[in-house]
């Protein structure tokens, strides 16, 4: 499995199929924003989002959305605050804001959020 740092540096892309996202790294997701939904509850009892870690990648299912390619606007992004697996979740310096951008052919761009885009941690 690749590290988040490696993915961001080499601009490695992920995948999306319908409401399913596949990220080529493993991380702890602390907060997620899609459209106007702000999600912090990733427990199994919560129906909004399901995260599952598989060998080699991380899967996220967005139950409230049929097709992420259609739901997420041209200039919008799915925003997340994540901590790379193995790093201290409680150290604020390890919290990285990233953006996922579904583009054509199921390709999912992954980038670190720049300062211009507002995402309150």
């Amino acid at each position: 499995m690749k590290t988040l740092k490696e993915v961001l540096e080499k601009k490695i892309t992920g995948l999306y199929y319908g409401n399913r996202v596949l990220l080529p790294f493993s991380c702890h997701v602390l907060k997620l924003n899609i459209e106007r939904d702000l999600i912090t509850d990733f427990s199994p009892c919560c129906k909004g989002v399901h995260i599952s870690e598989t060998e080699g990648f991380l899967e996220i299912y967005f139950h409230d959305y049929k097709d992420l390619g259609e739901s997420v606007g041209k200039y919008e992004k799915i925003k997340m605050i994540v901590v790379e697996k193995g790093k201290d979740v409680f150290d604020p310096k390890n919290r990285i804001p990233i953006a996922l951008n579904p583009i054509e052919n199921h390709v999912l761009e992954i980038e670190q959020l720049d300062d211009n885009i507002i995402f309150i941690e």
Partner: protein
Amino acid sequence: MNKFAITIIVLFSILLISSSLIAENKTVSDTLNTAAVLEKETTEQHDLPSPYMVLPFIILLTMIATGPLFYHHFWETNYPKIAIALGAVTVTYYLVFLQDTHSLIHTAAEYLSFIALLASLFVAAGGIFINIDKKSTPWLNAGILLFGACIANIIGTTGASMLLIRPFIKVNKHRIKPYHIVFFIFLVSNIGGALTPIGDPPLFLGFLRGVEFFWVIQHVWYIWLPTMAVVLVIFLIIDFRNLSESEEEVNYTGKFEFKGGKSVIYLAIIVISVFIDPAVMSWVPSLAPLPIGIREIIMFSVVFLAYQTADDEILKSNEFDFEPIKEVAYLFVGIFATMIPALQLISYEANVLGDRLTPGMFYFATGFLSAFLDNAPTYLNFLSAEMGKFGLNVNDFLEVIKFSELYPIYLSAISVAAVFFGAMTYIGNGPNFMVKSISERAGIKMPSFFGYLIKYALPILLPIYIIIWAIFYYNQV
């Protein structure tokens, strides 16, 4: 965008049916303009709707309030269908049972004006990028809020809100709390715009009827100023307390960055186009019986052009998306349609009781209804009732001027209430919802409909509004 396009097609189908029916009945002169259509319709008599027809409006308001709280997923997926379905109930009732197409085309014209202004300001402001790289302090925040409130009188509360909400969030990104956004809605999206007819739609309707452009600032500034001051002081107190809780070491350049000059030109075009109305400029052609005028065509053109010519990087930085304006368009198509019976019944009762109503009563009645209904038609109905009390006709330009000169306290009461009370709920004014939506996309957990009302609007604004009544309108006849 497909669903949005379908809604617009449905809306225009309703308008066209109404227009053709009106044309057949020859009830509207070919030379009438949009404003004149509204005037003529108000003078024509129709059967009053059944009080039961207020139910779709109550159901819609209840669902707007409870949907995001108790059945979030269902509401998020289905609110467009619900708003249109409930609106269709009222439209069908008026077409089939009352055969009152005038009220429908009147409302359609108001809705189109409303959404044209909101959409054009939303898109034009979305092409502007402002970045203030300074440390967030209560004084800086108060300065932004005061600046926003002032420019709301030049580019409207919607324009000011769309222009400043993102920079305001960015400045406060290290310590932002929901109250920052709530006070932004209070001051920039509502109270600020009480000084000119451009500030808020009800005042503009008054201007179209004959209230002089500078009448509002002359008769409202001494209420606006202390209200602004008190709300700002409350904000400063809360913000200073929040500041002490969250000291953080961040380096700031102190730079002010502004991009998107083209969009400023579009904003100027929108502001100028507000006056392109046959009621203001006689050379402006009328498009009657269509419920749309040259002004709305210009504004919709700006929506298209501003989006097409906007800088891609700015749109990316602003995370521009049509969703917030789509939400307003959907919900307000339902609100505008379902509130027709409510407004007509209120107007009737106000006219019947006119003799017994004082400025204070008009103040609270206009305010209460503006908090939950659209404030523009509410203002117009109470203006009509006030003038009827003195035997004056709201449809006569000269009589409106006479009324504003002889009974300024009455006009001031409904002007202040219509604008100020719009801040009481998320649905009180168009930009409230858009500001909420943009803030949520920026990761801010905003209070629910009731949370906003109970935690912020009632304890902060209502006492101020009661004091305004006690000082300026109590015991006035």
